[in-house]
């Protein structure tokens, strides 16, 4: 059942795709600001950047409906942003403010947002997959035609939870879209050094899960693949698996000596920057020009400025609230 994604030639680019560019740019500029804020110690803890991988979340999430669910990893600022979690509440979360989407209890790695069905923010590699299976099970048992999109890195494929989850989802034909963000490295460990069979699609196929390998640097390709996979998943054809081939331009987390990959490789992938690629195509078709791009940059910068100002002005949760939410308040 493994197949390269059916090709339709290069996807035509249309005026509607300017929105994909805008979403990717939001993620990029937001995270660039996060880097500065981390240096000035406004943001603490571990922070994992998505810079370079924006096309993946942007393309996939653009195919989801408002009732669908998203489960992501610790590298999830982008997923949250494109899913519609307000930039303000994400930034406030990273500042540890009570106005943050997780009240400052989660930080960068644990963004949660009920109103967009954004179920984290999981920092245990592989930990989100069984949860996604359960969300889909719950939807299926209650007759809802929702899809759960579950993002994880290729490193998670080595965990037992990956295999157990794919098997269970396939066995019960649950509506999960497994989105494997293959950025080639799990921290410092390259895929070939951790997998006896580095073809990820083959692994999914072993569980009878239809699997497609997608160019994760091309947001239009990602969207096309995701649209098909979401449709099939929603239609009751069981889980689907996308291997999205991408690359992180930065360190694994904020500091990382990058002893495991060479600069030439990074430079090579940077030439495939998903934002520049789409910008180039939109320009070529006359769908954006310098003015449009400048206006977009300005709008995005304003959003990020606003998010930072909101976070700066936020408040610390009173320490008396420390023990809240260990158990539910409604039942008491």
């Amino acid at each position: 059942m493994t197949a390269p994604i059916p090709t339709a030639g290069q996807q035509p680019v249309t005026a509607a795709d300017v929105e994909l560019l805008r979403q990717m740019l939001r993620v990029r500029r937001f995270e660039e600001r996060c880097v500065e804020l981390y240096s000035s110690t406004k943001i603490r803890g571990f922070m994992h950047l998505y810079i370079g991988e924006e096309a993946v979340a942007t393309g996939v999430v653009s195919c989801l409906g408002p009732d669908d669910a998203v489960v992501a990893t610790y590298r999830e600022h982008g997923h949250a942003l494109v899913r519609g979690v307000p930039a303000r509440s994400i930034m406030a979360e990273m500042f540890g403010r009570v106005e943050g989407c997780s009240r400052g209890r989660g930080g960068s790695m644990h963004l949660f947002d009920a109103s967009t069905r954004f179920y984290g923010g999981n920092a245990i590699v592989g930990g989100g997959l069984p949860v996604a299976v359960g969300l889909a099970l719950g939807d299926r048992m209650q007759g809802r035609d929702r899809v759960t999109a579950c993002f994880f890195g290729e490193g998670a494929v080595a965990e037992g939870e990956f295999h157990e989850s794919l098997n269970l989802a396939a066995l019960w034909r649950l509506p999960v879209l497994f989105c494997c963000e293959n950025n080639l490295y799990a921290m410092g460990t390259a895929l070939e050094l951790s997998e006896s069979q580095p073809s990820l699609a083959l692994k999914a196929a072993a569980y009878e899960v239809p699997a497609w390998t997608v160019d994760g640097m091309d947001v239009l390709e990602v969207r096309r693949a995701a649209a098909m996979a979401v449709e099939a998943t929603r239609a009751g054809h069981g889980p689907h698996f996308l291997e999205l081939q991408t690359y992180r331009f930065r360190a694994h987390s904020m500091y990382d000596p990058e002893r495991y990959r060479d600069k030439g490789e990074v430079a090579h992938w940077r030439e495939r920057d998903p934002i520049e690629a789409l910008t180039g195509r939109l320009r070529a078709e006359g769908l954006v020009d310098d003015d449009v791009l400048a206006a977009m940059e300005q709008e995005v910068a304003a959003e990020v400025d606003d998010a930072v100002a909101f976070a700066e002005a936020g408040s610390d949760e009173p320490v008396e609230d420390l023990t809240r939410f260990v158990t539910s308040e409604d039942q008491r």
Partner: protein
Amino acid sequence: MRTTYRDAMRAALRQALADDPRVFLMGEDVGRYGGCFAVSLGLLEEFGPERVRDTPLSESAFVGAGVGAAMAGMRPIVEIMTVNFSLLALDQIVNNAATILHMSGGQFNVPLVIRMTTGAGRQLAAQHSHSLEGWYAHVPGLRVLAPATVEDARGMLAPALADPDPVIIFEHGSLYAMEGDLPDDTRPVELDHAAVRRPGRDLTLVTYGGCLPKVLAAADALSAEGVEAEVIDLRTLRPLDDDTLAESVARTHRAVVVDEGWRTGGLSAEVAARISEQCFWDLDAPVGRVGSAEVPIPYAKHMEEAALPQVDDVVAAALEAVS
């Protein structure tokens, strides 16, 4: 020699690898990346990929492989990035490593060393900050160590490797950068005894691992108020050294147990119970406890600080015990 806890740990690993061809190190990113906390930095270059083995993200598999390799005659040192991730390998540790000797009627021993970080204090939130060493200390068949000083970081690995049974070493993440003095002749330390890190007559403060520096600071603060606290570093969390505890409390008549775990069902409960059992007639006050608030550790700095035992909390509990 002046060195850091991290470098001391690395020196111990280097020596173990150099001294015994059966020893090898394996875990996630111990090689090319240099270890997630840079403990094994440079060892791959020195000893090669057979003996410093990067593993896939498969905690259960590589810990289980450590169990098997140990039974097959090797002396594996398995590194798990943090205690939080060790939960994915809990089955192998508790159901295999700890039981096989007994289940096999004494036929197969498991000379395995597992190292992992533990603890909070770096704003890493609830999936990277917990102190679950007490869970492991609950399990017969395991020896559980918590080096809290540079000397113990340097000296505990060799006796752990010499132990015929599984040993887990907990390294508190906040200790790696701590500096200390190391005697030039590095002898293996003995593991059977708790250490009195500071003598005192008025009460006994019992702690281990990442809380030791805080408790020593509290003891200094108490001294300024005229209260002389004796500080005991448990060092080995299983088996516990009852004698050192009892001897101290028999002199001081008061005790406070400090650790970063939750109090409910925690290691501090065990220590307090043992003190009460052994020293009931010596005690002039109930055994006090300072632990983390009963919450998953939060990200926000002020909330994390509020959740963790702090020097002031130790001082307050000590003053209450002596009041």
